[in-house]
């Protein structure tokens, strides 16, 4: 049981829900950028939520299934073809051996997640399969996927039997009629709303810059990757320049660089940083950010710690209800 990477595309890598417990040695959490989409992909195809998935950034990726399999695709950012027929996200798909999945350019979105029923047979390194390419940890040989990589599949038992209800047609595959929920939030006039809580250094910015931060539109720059998303927009300044000692940072933290521009730390973020931390993104909204591409526009909304926690809780409840619905 295996799949072959015919083309890695712009960037694709093996991820799970992250490498927790090693930040004290400077090792980032990593894991799926859009955590909710990765969880959903696993749930839809009957895997445990923590199972490894393939994260496909934008497009160009082509994957061949060397055996018959059941899969699901979540997230956004590609128009996906299976055996040259367009298929939709958020379904359960059953396919024959030799099927080929192609990720082609789409007008919006950024990251797709492929989960395969039974899971990927990838060795954990430091408790996780997540690829952190800069240090060569996780994935296959510590690297992002390359042309010709073969990934073995596991045969863990599916948590639901929905695959029995669909039959493969002459196209070599079958798609469920039911749809897993689309977790992407509605955009307002093309502007993405990102909920934030104020950060540890919020008070070091005066009223003028705080309101600038909260009331201005920022756009995603070209410097956006798994480590962080640099924004473009109004510049922010500290009331008084203060030499900061390195402080803890993690995914979701928004730092303001010396140039006065916010940078949002993402999955592969460093564990410490020296810039003022103006805010932190509500964990549930990191998934929205993971789906942003350069030039996408966003605004920040200040919510309470409690609202932030509620939001994530609500998303997890939605996922749980989907899982229960599929199992029963």
């Amino acid at each position, binding site marked *: 049981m295996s799949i072959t990477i015919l083309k890695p595309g712009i960037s694709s890598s093996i991820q799970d829900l992250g490498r*927790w*417990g*090693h*930040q*004290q*040695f*400077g*090792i*980032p959490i990593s894991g799926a950028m859009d955590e909710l989409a990765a969880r959903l992909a696993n749930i839809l195809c009957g895997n445990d939520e923590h199972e490894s998935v393939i994260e496909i950034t934008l497009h160009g990726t082509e994957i061949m299934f060397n055996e018959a399999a059941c899969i699901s695709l979540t997230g956004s950012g590609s128009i996906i073809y299976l055996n040259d027929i367009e298929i939709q996200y958020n379904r359960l798909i059953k396919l024959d051996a030799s099927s080929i999945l192609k990720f082609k350019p789409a007008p919006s979105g950024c990251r797709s997640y492929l989960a395969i029923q039974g899971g990927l047979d990838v060795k954990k*390194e*430091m408790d996780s399969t997540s690829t952190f390419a*800069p*240090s*060569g*940890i996780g994935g296959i040989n*510590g690297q992002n996927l390359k042309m010709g990589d073969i990934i073995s599949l596991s045969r863990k038992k599916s948590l639901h039997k929905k695959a029995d209800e669909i039959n493969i047609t002459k196209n070599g595959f079958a798609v469920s009629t039911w749809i897993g929920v689309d977790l992407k939030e509605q955009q307002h006039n093309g502007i993405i709303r990102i909920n934030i*809580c104020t950060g*540890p250094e919020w008070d070091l910015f005066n009223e003028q810059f705080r309101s600038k931060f909260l009331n201005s539109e920022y756009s995603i720059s070209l410097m956006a990757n798994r480590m962080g998303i640099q924004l473009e927009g109004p510049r922010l300044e500290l009331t008084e320049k203060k030499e*900061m*000692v*390195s*402080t*803890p*940072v*993690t*995914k*979701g*933290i928004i730092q303001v660089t010396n140039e006065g521009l916010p940078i949002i730390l993402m999955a592969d973020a*460093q*564990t*410490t940083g020296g810039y003022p931390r103006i805010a*932190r993104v*509500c*964990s549930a909204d990191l998934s929205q950010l993971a789906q942003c591409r350069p030039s996408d526009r966003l605004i920040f909304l200040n919510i309470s*710690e409690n609202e*932030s*926690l509620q939001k*994530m809780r609500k998303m*997890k409840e939605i996922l749980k209800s989907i899982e229960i619905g599929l199992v029963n």
Partner: protein
Amino acid sequence: MNSPRIYALHDQAITIELGNEINEAINLEVLYLKQDFEAMPFEGFIECVPAYSSLTIYFNESRTQEEVRKEIISRLEKKNLSTNKSTLIETTLGSTINIKPIIIPVCYDVEYGTDLIWLSNHLGLSIDEIISLHTESFFRVYMMGFIPGFAYMGTLPEKLHAPRKQTPAQQIPIGSVAIAGKQTGIYPAAVPGGWQIIGRTPHLMFDKKRNPCSLLKAGDAVQFKSISKKEFESAS
């Protein structure tokens, strides 16, 4: 000292901030708290990540922010850090923190210590004086960060305090030993960096196949030992 500032760093992480400076006493207190949480972890505890003057505690999804915050506050109250911290720290850390220094060999040849000549001019010290100052001191690992296996060590003798580079170097070779301000560190991988390079160690600071993967951890004592180019080459 004021009572610590406690804030959420993430939905699953809370930071206890004891100050905002590079100060050995504060850092000891951070490490003392780390040991305490590790020795008696609460339910759902993942890990403690120490920084210069703060400790971040990560916990899993089974626990809420509110529950963990209460747990942390009650533990801090029991420790009553602000009143009798020095005795607590001495008795606990004195016995548990490894005070025997880890010796790190460094070749201070100008071929590897690419900023030695600049530093010599800037600091008004000979290269030999720089080497002596760097090898005679004991350093503490205050925290890990930046990239896997990077130890922030201090405190550098005042005579060696130098600014960071105006423009960071594109690629600093693996094992490069560097200084910046009060700090010294070793680059565990080839990455861009802005510290002044004074030498190179043949030791692997980070090896994912080793357990623990990092040669150093917060709280370790470190001393550098000068080795010749020949010794460096045969050890690499």
